[in-house]
């Protein structure tokens, strides 16, 4: 059989049809390179004038990576547990059972915790023999950081879930990239002072920023900053309320439009 450019074109057209109807897919294509550039740009800028930063507290970057993964895995764990029901066309079965939306959300939070622990615990343990760095030396404050990041992950997961309920699997990619939208502003690897003024305002409104600022205070000065902890807690409460509000709105909208039975693409 001869090679057909028409058939190749037809297959490309098939994917263009999907892309045309799915703005999250198009956004995602440009998203990762941009985010990487922004994060590493800020870090490079900071290290250029603070070359002894890492020497001041050896584990500061490793701890940042690990705690960032708590947030990422927490959000992903929440969203994936929901997506699995969509992928298997099981959502209608669940919503026609006595399971209430609140019970479903609580089960997703529990699974988010389990998935986050399974995801980050091996890395945390491996860092001890590999780099002679134990994040567990942070002690009880580590639990405070973990708790705040997990709650933030779940709140973001609720927002992702709401978008998937509203836009279907076309919004699935948001589960993977939404949290990274916040990475440059969360100040995972550099202090908030590195950011320009307008970005600092956004940054201070994120619970994650207060966690990472608090983490650095612990690592550099061995001080637990209650102000950062309370700020993270308060902002998380607000974020959870917003997440629940958006989720309930999307759920009501999905019931109005009949989206709970329409799964898949």
């Amino acid at each position: 059989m001869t090679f057909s450019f028409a058939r190749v074109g037809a297959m490309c057209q098939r994917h263009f049809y999907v892309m045309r109807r799915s703005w999250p897919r198009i956004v995602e294509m440009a998203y990762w390179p941009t985010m990487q550039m922004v994060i590493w740009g800020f870090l490079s800028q900071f290290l250029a004038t603070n070359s002894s930063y890492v020497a001041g507290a050896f584990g500061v970057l490793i701890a940042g990576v690990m705690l960032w993964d708590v947030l990422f895995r927490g959000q992903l764990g929440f969203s994936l547990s929901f997506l699995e029901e969509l992928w298997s066309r099981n959502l209608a079965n669940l919503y026609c059972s006595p399971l209430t939306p609140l019970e479903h959300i609580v089960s997703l939070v529990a699974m988010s915790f389990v998935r986050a622990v399974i995801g980050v615990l091996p890395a945390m343990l491996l860092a001890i023999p590999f780099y002679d760095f134990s994040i567990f030396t942070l002690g009880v404050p580590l639990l405070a950081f973990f708790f705040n990041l997990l709650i933030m992950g779940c709140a973001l997961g609720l927002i992702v879930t709401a978008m998937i309920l509203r836009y279907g699997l076309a919004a699935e990619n948001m589960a993977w990239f939404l949290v990274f939208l916040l990475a440059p502003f969360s100040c995972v690897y550099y202090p908030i002072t590195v950011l320009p003024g307008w970005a600092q305002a956004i940054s201070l409104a994120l619970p994650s920023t207060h966690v990472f600022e608090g983490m650095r205070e612990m690592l550099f000065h061995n001080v637990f900053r209650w102000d950062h902890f309370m700020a993270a807690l308060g902002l998380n409460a607000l974020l959870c309320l917003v997440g629940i509000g958006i989720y309930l709105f999307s759920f009501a909208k999905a019931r109005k439009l009949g989206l709970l039975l329409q799964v898949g693409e």
Partner: protein
Amino acid sequence: MLSEPIIDVDQLQKSFGDLKAVDGLTFGVKAGQTAALLGGNGAGKTTTISMLLGLLVPTAGRIRLFGLDIARQRHKVLGRMNFSSPYVDLPHRLSARENLTVFGKLYGIKDVAGRIKEVAAALDLDALLDRRTGSLSAGQKTRVALGKALLNRPELLLLDEPTASLDPDTADWVRHYLENYQRESGAAILLASHNMNEVERLAHEVLMMRKGKIVDRGTPDDLIYRFGRQNLEEVFLDIARDRRSGEPAEVRGLLP
């Protein structure tokens, strides 16, 4: 004394923009009775069942199940009903037993393992229980889904195309099972189906739907008689092609 209907639907409407998917449906189904929604594609059968399940909010009208308005008290009745539909599925990576266990717990069944054993025996699922649901054939999946629908011994069963992917032998066997289940439990059943044999056999009342409306209703025998036809399929075609007449056949000169 007349018993209160388990399903009580009054002037139910659902619009999607300008499209009226369901337009002024009024009907009821009592305990121990089976009603069938019969109509072509797009007649509004699945939309009606979705509204009864609470998956879809009506544009207007009222649905009462077990005497409760589901717009406000849906969660009080969900444990007393169940459903099966080809539009939903069970998680493929779980075994049939795992799926039934999860749903058994969601429905608050006390002895889940014991109930699964009973349902498996009744629906001949024993050999399938420990296989991944995704590896089952379409017919086997339908039987497992039916098993899920019967786990909580529902007083109301909503079945959308319950035997759609079953071979005639298995389909007949499932119908027989549903008849027995209803006789023993007194459950009300609402059925949406394209299968005329199924409807003729199971339904006490047939609601003929077209473009979101009930255009005729009656027992299967009554409809066949009034349309002067040999079977329900011919009645269905008359209605689908808009050449209906609800007048008794002898009035139209079709019968002596």
